């Protein structure tokens, strides 16, 4: 489970990057955080990963405060970044092996790595290929394979579909759906309104550090997410006064 409780972050230059954020992602749920650049999406993920300390509030992973017990909290989370570069001199399997070990997964066999890479749609010939020869889409898939092989109950995805071609994007959503079925709690920050609508169980829109709107997947069936998003970005709609995290 991923949970933010009254999470705020004010930087040293007095910029309020995150303002009293509340959200909760249950096991088997995908939560999409939408918002323009600088809205606070990545800051949220960075706080969950303990790369930034919150000014107030709590970021909980499996009920463990990430700021207080970062190492313990990180045992329950896997992360995929926007631009997965990895070690170019290593093969895909070697990269997978290294990060799996860091994630506490030892004694994995070659087949386990191959399975994970197959699952994310990497072609077989790429398994033992050096990553420096990979396209961005392939690297991104490998990044997801790294998250999969860790087999953590929670996943933090920071704009994972940016730069992916439509086919790769669609394959990625399939993988996400499978992970949800496997009971993972997934928090994904993204600009991609359409894919969010397709895959999310809940969508939150962020603006200037605040969550200004939250809808469930069912609610969005009757609303146009694109219009809602643009309205909030333009400021033609007032932020919802209290957007509570679901119970």
């Amino acid at each position, binding site marked *: 489970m991923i949970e933010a409780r009254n999470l705020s972050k004010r930087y040293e230059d007095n910029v309020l990057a995150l303002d009293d954020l509340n959200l909760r992602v249950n096991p088997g749920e995908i939560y999409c955080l939408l918002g323009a650049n600088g809205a606070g999406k*990545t800051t949220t993920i*960075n706080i969950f*990963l303990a*790369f*930034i300390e919150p000014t107030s509030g709590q970021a909980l992973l499996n009920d463990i405060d990430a700021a207080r017990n*970062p*190492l*313990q*909290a*990180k*045992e329950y*989370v*896997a*992360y995929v*970044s926007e*631009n*997965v*570069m*990895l*070690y*170019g*001199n*290593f093969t895909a399997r*070697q990269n997978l092996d*290294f*990060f799996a*070990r*860091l*994630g*506490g997964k030892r004694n994995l066999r070659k087949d386990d790595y191959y399975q994970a890479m197959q699952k994310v749609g990497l072609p077989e010939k790429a398994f033992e290929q050096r990553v420096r020869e990979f396209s961005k889409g392939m690297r991104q898939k490998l*990044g997801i394979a*790294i998250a999969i092989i*860790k087999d953590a109950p929670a996943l*933090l995805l920071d704009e994972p579909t940016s730069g992916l071609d439509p086919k790769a994007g669609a394959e990625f959503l399939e993988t996400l759906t499978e992970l949800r079925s496997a009971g993972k709690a997934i928090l994904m920050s993204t600009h991609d309104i359409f894919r969010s609508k397709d895959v999310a169980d809940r969508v939150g829109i962020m603006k200037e550090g605040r969550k200004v709107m939250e809808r469930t997947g069912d609610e969005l069936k009757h609303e146009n997410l694109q219009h809602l998003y643009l309205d909030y970005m333009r400021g033609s709609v007032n932020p919802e006064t209290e957007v509570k995290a679901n119970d």
Partner: protein
Amino acid sequence: MIRDIIKKEILDNITSPKFVFTFLLCTILILLSVYTGVANYSAEKKEHTASVALNRKNMESRRDYQSLASGIKINKPPQVLGTIVTGIEEAVGRVAPVNIASDPNLIESKYESNPVFAVFGALDLMFIVKIVLSLFAILFTYDAIVGEKERGTLKLALSNSVPRDKFILGKAIGGYISLLLPLLIPVLLSLIILLLAPDLSLGRAEWSRLFFIFCMFFLYLSVFFSLGLFVSTRTARSSTSFLVLLFIWVVFVMVVPKVAVIIASRIKPVPSIHEITSKKDAFLRQVSAEVNKGLPEWIQKNARNFPRDQKAAQEMIMKYVKEIQDEATTRIDANNAALEKDYQLKKKEQQNLAVNLSRISPASALTFGSMTLARTGVDEYDRFLSSVRTYKPIYTKWINSKMGTTISVLTGGEQVRIDDMPLHHLEPENLSSSLYKALPDFSLMIGMIIVFFAGACVSFLRYDVR
């Protein structure tokens, strides 16, 4: 976990083009330097043996002792570890002439006979470690942390429950092993060359010295390695890190040692050797004039007292000549010794200041420390010169005694015999003394490693991985 990080770091480095480049260049340079060092040493050893034999032959062929007073030559033997650390051997000269008139100094350096060597210096192993390998240490570390940040791998790695101290320690160990790996084969081959070279006879003491010299090399590389790690945790871009490190490298290796010498010469000026020589010459002339004036005066004054027997008269003159010769020599020696002592004292003070100032730089610490251990540094030069200066009055006394007994106003000289001539001897400095002298250099380097590595760890614990 730390093992995984070490393994990853080694694998990442050895599969990179920089590793292959480093390995090839290290192999070529190290083997070339050791081979050249061994060849030079063999040549110098042969030259030394030939020179010693020639000197002896020359002395024996002299027709009288008067001509021996003009001087003999003491040849400085080449140091076997000069094959690794040439030091100042090529710059200071290989021969110290000893004569009554002047103080001994080393002349006939390799640079004198071929000044072009002075321009380029020696390509010894110490030079390769100091210049080339320190740059490689930077090359292996400048992007150790900041590079991982740029690639996004740092964020990915630390999104796992990986303690930062273990991560940086693993990277440091792995990176250092990667740096040493390309050196391993050429260094082993070099040791085999040293072991098998026919003219080289390395005893246990020399091998021990070699061991400590290599320790110093590794410490020096560790200084730049930990510095690289530190700078890479303090910068946001790998290009910035590389530039900062390059700047520090230039300051440490090129600027500080030279500036230290300039500052020392300003703070503690030393009169030039020409000033000292002219003072000595002036006194010599004064004493000579007194002697030249004194002998005819004495003869005139004592003419009436001369015995009628010619032989007895000659003995009386010889006795007087010996007395004034001894007195003049004593006065000249005393004056020269006072001037020389003052000069050496000032020079030593300046040297010590320059050495201590330049020790801010690990390159200077390496230079002085390894030269001390190889016995090719300033200390050894001072020891040799001091031993020759100690020998000079012994030789002077011997030659005076010979001249006093064989001077023959009427019959001329007799064949020179040097069987009873006292010989110059210099006891080699023992290892513990050398280690004691090199202790500040070892300590400084260890101190720098601790400071830089601690700095890197502290910075990394607070490092913004975003």
